[in-house]
């Protein structure tokens, strides 16, 4: 073992087999990287197809049936194949143990199992697509349509069930890791905020995901056995499905955004060389968001015939989620104040996040308000809001994190010029695409429709052109990553002069992360004191 301690984890062993059955959290993180980035590209292609179809009213490139399948696949792939596993799977796996000074996650075998459950879930989904009739229900699988449609819903929901199991085991692993494997001196309040965010996410994964598991099993049973829970003909209630679905899927939105918020805390402090403003408030707000997210699922059903009292309470709790979100926003902005800011690519994405996430969050308050939601429910306003939070929030933060940790993960520097081009293209393309959809939504264009009135044509075309700019920016990013990983400059140990523990080991890290188990003596953002105090 002693000879391997100084060798980086890529060189510790070689061969495809050693990668496919690896128990090293860093290699599993790299496996997730390939898998989820590929999923992002596939989901993105479906998004481009949907946008292209909407370029003109009436049929443009596909039939109604294929349009329904395309938006279903776009949603399901982006949510279940990409955005839920991506940040915990890649960056959580790779960096959570390093950031708390551990050699690995608590249960390495379980970690590998999580990865293969994700792959198995994808395979079951793909089988359903290949075997014929792809699902056309939208990613929400609402009953009663999902019971009646001739499309292959079962392979879709069973695949998602398996991926949910994967997500649960990842969360369980991270909680146990954070509790038991912190290195000497790594107290709870010396943990980086990314670790806090991943921890809060893990709590949600463990508590909420089993509910979608049982819901999707019941939906499969409904199709196989006609059990009638969601079927009014047999005395059941289709809205019950919506309650069950959103009881998971609203917390799931925070499973998606919380890790992104953690990345932003790391990037903003590093590139302003300043301690985080209000460390404990930011850490606590992650747990606060996780908690409140369990109380708001009903705001997806304001128009489904809920009682007025329920609507009022869900609206109230929804407003409450703005509080921990705003705590984060204000603390991030205050962190920048009087910092020595350097506008490297990760920082550009992080600053972009502050804008796009603010828009996403504020339009969420519109939708949480009962009187406004009655008008905006099921219009493009909802689509635009959702994408401002998920893409403008999570995906932007994810890109920031990929650029930020690229030197540590690959041992190479990315190309700064291409990175900046990537950011500018993305930021412009993103805002064009989805700002246009806010306008469409306010003007009353319904979501998920194949056809639309001629008066909506202009803004739809703006939105579609925007989607091409996003696609171009992603191509630039992928080219940058691949080219830099092969030909980039060699990365030093700590290219950003960051205080994080992950920057005190080699780039890329050695097999057991550190040559000697580190001892932590200071908080994670104490700029102004030397690294090895």
């Amino acid at each position: 073992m002693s000879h391997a301690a100084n060798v980086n984890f890529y060189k510790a062993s070689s061969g495809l087999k050693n990668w496919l059955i690896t128990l090293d959290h860093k290699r599993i993180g790299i496996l997730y990287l390939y898998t989820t980035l590929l999923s992002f590209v596939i989901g993105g292609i479906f998004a481009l197809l949907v946008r292209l179809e909407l370029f003109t009213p009436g049929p443009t490139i596909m039939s109604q049936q294929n349009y329904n399948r395309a938006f279903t696949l776009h949603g399901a792939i982006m949510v279940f194949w990409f955005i839920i596993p991506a940040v915990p799977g890649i960056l959580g796996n790779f960096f959570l143990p390093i950031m708390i000074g551990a050699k690995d996650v608590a249960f390495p075998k379980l970690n590998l199992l999580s990865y293969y459950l994700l792959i198995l879930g994808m395979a079951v989904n793909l089988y359903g697509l290949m075997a014929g009739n792809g699902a056309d229900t939208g990613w929400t699988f609402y009953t009663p349509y999902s019971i009646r449609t001739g499309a292959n819903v079962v392979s879709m929901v069973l695949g998602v069930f398996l991926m949910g199991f994967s997500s649960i085991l990842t969360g369980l692993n991270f909680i146990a890791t954070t509790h038991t494997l912190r290195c000497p001196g790594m107290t709870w309040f010396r943990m980086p905020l990314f670790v806090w965010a991943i921890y809060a996410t893990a709590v949600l994964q463990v508590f909420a995901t089993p509910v979608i598991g049982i819901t999707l099993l019941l939906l499969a049973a409904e199709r196989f056995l006609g059990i009638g829970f969601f079927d009014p003909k047999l005395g059941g209630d289709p809205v019950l499905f919506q309650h069950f679905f959103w009881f998971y899927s609203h917390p799931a939105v925070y499973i998606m955004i919380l890790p992104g918020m953690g990345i932003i805390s790391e990037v903003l402090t590093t590139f302003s060389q300043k301690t985080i403003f209000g460390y404990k408030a930011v850490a606590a707000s992650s747990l606060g968001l996780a908690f409140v997210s369990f109380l708001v699922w009903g705001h997806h059903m304001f128009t489904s015939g809920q009682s007025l009292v329920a609507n009022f309470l869900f609206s109230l709790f929804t407003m409450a989620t703005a509080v921990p979100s705003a705590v984060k926003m204000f603390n991030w902005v205050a962190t920048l104040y009087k910092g020595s800011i350097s506008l490297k690519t990760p920082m550009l994405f992080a600053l972009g996040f502050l804008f796009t996430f603010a828009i996403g969050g504020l339009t969420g308050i519109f939708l949480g308000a009962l009187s406004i939601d009655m008008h905006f429910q099921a219009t493009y306003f909802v689509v635009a809001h959702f994408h401002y939070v998920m893409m403008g929030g999570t995906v932007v933060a994810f890109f920031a994190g990929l650029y930020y940790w690229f030197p540590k993960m690959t041992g190479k520097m990315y190309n700064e010029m291409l990175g900046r081009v990537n950011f500018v293209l993305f930021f412009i393309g993103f805002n064009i695409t989805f700002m246009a959809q806010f306008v469409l939504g306010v003007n009353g264009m319904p979501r998920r429709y194949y056809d639309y009135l001629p008066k909506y044509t202009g803004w739809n075309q703006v939105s579609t052109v925007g989607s091409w700019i996003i696609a171009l920016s992603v191509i630039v990013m992928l080219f940058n990553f691949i080219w830099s990983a092969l030909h980039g400059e060699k990365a030093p140990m700590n290219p950003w002069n960051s205080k994080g523990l992950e920057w005190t080991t080699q780039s890329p890290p050695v097999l057991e992360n550190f040559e000697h188990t580190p001892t932590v003596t200071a908080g994670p953002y104490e700029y102004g004191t030397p690294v090895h105090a």
Partner: protein
Amino acid sequence: MSSTHAKLDHAHHFNSADHEFAAGKIGMWLFLVTEIMLFSGLFVGYGIFHYIYPEMFREAHHELNKVLGSINTIVLLSSSLTMALAINAIQRDKPELAKKMLAFTFLCACTFLCIKFFEYSHKFHEGLLPGKFYSNTELKAPNAALFFSFYFVMTGIHGIHVLIGMACIAWIYIRVNRGDFDSHHYNAVEFVGLYWHIVDLVWIFLFPLLYLVV
């Protein structure tokens, strides 16, 4: 990597066997939380439909066999006791006693499933089947099929848990037989025990809700 550490009694990323045990325990308890959440969806559904159709639930539940249900409750409770005794035996370095206790636990699980099989076949015979397969004509209350949907889905998912538990108990029995455990190293026994108790606990809720409901 594991081969180079074969001499150690704990995985390379832990400080000691106790450290590994503590992490495993957190993991196991979290897994039990997910089990509770999984069943909670069913319990909530049950509560809602019981509230909507109280008469139907009252009439339909008389079709379940209270005697067999009670026997099964006693069987599972006994098996939980012997599972706890098996862990206790390992903690006191008595593998032979642990093996007997595990064997008894396994037999109880078999008994439980046998009784469940006879109950199910009786329901099949009467046409008391879930949802659209329901063909009984004697029950008066409308939507009685829904009660049997709950009955089969809830006891069915519980039954799958019993099967998984039996596989785990058999695996533990083989490992005890092989001499894998002693009073300091019995993580797997403890974790299977915890799992078995949750299977028992879920039944403790299912039994009154389905068989004794008023």
